[in-house]
């Protein structure tokens, strides 16, 4: 934001208004407010909504006063793919690309992780690591292709990612149906060397599904922040995102940047696919529909404003809502409420720009007063 009132002390309210984090928070609260009203309108008790959310966040069950940390574990576990798929959109967005292809990249990551899990060398640790690495790489490839098509042939990434999502879905079926023990909905069980469950985390969270993928996600968050803000690579990518022509003129290899950025984006989503495949399941899935983590990643990144921390927090929010959704239904709150809240939050994100407009208008008024007072 351009702040042309330098030197003047800014009021607290003004400073809050300037902070993206604060506006995001307000937007989230606003989304919940409308959701609450909606719940009340259909004659359900909104308190149950918040009981569910509290339990998803803290594991505390208000109704019987019991604590079960497993719910925290599940919330965190659901957050992992949301956050990583959020980074998939965010990374591309920072280079000026709109990646709707998170879903396809996620599916390919999942698929390849399953392939390696079932066919790879059964060496402890290495097996799972190989599967995860390959999942990340195929995601990178699936995204990188989009970048190449965009950079070389000016094929809109919006269009090509949409196509590649569906191609990934059916390709995944074709591939997984060839895997050992494949029936039409699952493969054989993974060897234990391939799964990434983590007994430490399980113990910590009372046997939730939380697995080593959580650590990978944390590493990814740091990596995302580090690459974007602290490396020359990120510098070049951001420059390309803001002004492709100027970046090119300055010697930044734009074609490479775009392909690379989509590859990184895809890598995050591919990693998500790999983590879900090996962390939440003990067998390969032959999918007949999408998990939608990739699509929801779009909303996650938008709420998180494409920053590392913002996207991570937004991912936690979505993970929490997903966990709360199941708890809510047990309390007779319709599950659609969480979709509506999520949708509203994203719609309300637009209010950020309303705040900008308000700020400008406010400055203008003040200045006019100053000028006319002279």
């Amino acid at each position: 934001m351009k702040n042309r009132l330098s030197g003047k002390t800014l009021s607290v309210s003004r400073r809050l208004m300037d902070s993206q984090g604060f506006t995001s928070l307000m937007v989230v609260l606003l989304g919940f407010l409308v959701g609450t009203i909606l719940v009340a309108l259909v004659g359900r008790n909104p308190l149950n909504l918040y009981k569910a959310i509290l339990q998803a966040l803290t594991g505390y069950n208000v109704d019987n006063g019991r604590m079960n940390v497993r719910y925290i574990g599940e919330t965190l576990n659901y957050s992992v793919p949301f956050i990583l798929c959020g980074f998939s959109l965010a990374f591309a967005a920072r280079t000026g690309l709109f990646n709707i292809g998170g879903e396809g990249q996620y599916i390919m990551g999942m698929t390849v992780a399953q392939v390696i899990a079932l066919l790879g060398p059964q060496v402890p640790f290495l097996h799972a690591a190989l599967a995860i690495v390959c999942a990340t790489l195929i995601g990178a490839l699936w995204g990188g292709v989009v970048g190449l098509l965009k950079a070389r042939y000016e094929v809109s990434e919006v269009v090509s990612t949409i196509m590649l999502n569906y191609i990934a879905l059916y390709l995944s079926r074709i591939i997984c149906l060839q895997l050992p023990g494949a029936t039409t909905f699952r493969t054989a069980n993974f060897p234990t060397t391939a799964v990434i469950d983590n007994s430490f985390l399980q113990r910590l969270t009372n046997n939730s599904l939380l697995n080593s993928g959580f650590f990978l996600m944390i590493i990814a968050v740091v990596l995302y922040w580090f690459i974007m803000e602290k490396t020359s690579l990120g510098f070049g990518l951001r420059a390309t995102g803001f002004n492709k022509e100027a970046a090119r003129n300055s010697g930044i290899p734009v074609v490479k940047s775009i392909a690379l950025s989509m590859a990184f984006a895809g890598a995050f989503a591919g990693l998500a696919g790999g983590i879900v495949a090996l962390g939440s399941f003990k067998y390969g899935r032959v999918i007949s529909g999408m998990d939608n983590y990739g699509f929801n990643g779009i909303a996650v990144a938008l709420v998180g404003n494409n920053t590392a921390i913002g996207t991570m927090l937004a991912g936690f929010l979505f993970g929490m809502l997903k966990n709360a959704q199941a708890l809510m239904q047990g309390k007779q709150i319709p599950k659609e409420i969480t979709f509506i809240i999520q949708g509203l939050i994203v719609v309300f994100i637009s209010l950020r720009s309303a705040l900008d407009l308000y700020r400008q208008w406010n400055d203008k008024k003040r200045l006019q007063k100053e000028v006319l007072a002279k």
Partner: protein
Amino acid sequence: GGAKETPVVPGGKPTIRLLTDATGIDDKSFNAAAWRGIVEFYGDTGGNTSRRGAFYDVVTAQTQDMYIPNLKQAADEGYDLIAVTGFTWADSLNEVAPLYPDQNFMIVDVDYVTQPNVMNFVYREEQGSYLVGMVAALQAKEDGIANPRFGFIGGVPGATITKFEMGYIQGIRSVFPNAPIVDYYTNDWGKPELAKAQAKSWYDTGVYAVYSAAGGSGNGTIAQAKEYRAQGRNVWAIGVDSDQYADGLYDGTKSSVLTSMIKKVESSSLYALHAVENGTFTGTVVAMSLADDGVGYSAANPELSKNVIAQVEAAKADIINGKITIYGTYKEALANNAAPAGLSARDD
């Protein structure tokens, strides 16, 4: 184990939670049927679910990675019975059930969750499908069609759907031993437009009835049959899972759904709930067949001739008393020359 936290059982009835996959309880298929059984058990109706929340409720899992957490959550919350539907739940249940040995579970469509606290229900869909195949064939004969063709549309191929297809074919062939049969899989439970286009193309080339076991995609078949029947063409759709007569209504009591293969998943929930109530719940496999009234066909369509119904009822008796053998896999059916080669059915 057995985190029975709310043993409040007002009125002495057992409590139950139904867990479903993403399609929820309005899938017109096993989820809907399981739910119907539950609602019925408490004396509620579809329109009035006043005891929901107190005795029974449902949680829908948006994605498959929610299965295990949802099972554990239900166990935490303490229900007398936890019900899941469909083979996609089997692995998760197999993992969770031993963690809660005092918790009763039931699963539909699976016979291999062999835990002492899990009741498995399997349905002999091929038997019901045999009957609807027969209905279609007999009705064609009744209508004086010399060499009728029949179609089958599946969703995503697999062993379960193959049972439907094989039973159907054998039912048809019991009437017309050489009847040409075509099949098509949409590979997607939600693409009615593909089913509709395929059904239209078949009806145009002389197919008399199309049986679809394709979830939401099957709606396309019914829609096409409605249009053609409204235009006066003699073609039929065949419903699946529940009686889809009402879905096929296009004019007064005229429905384009000739009959439906009915799979009474409600009897599973009723059976299991009664077992819990009477203290007879055990980890077993309960087979639901024609004999148990677990599967069947619908005779709701008034255009169905009495004569046809009579013959089908006779066949039903023969199936129950074992005079008619029906092969449930494509492999067996092929081996016994009960199905034509070149179909898209899969046995795994």
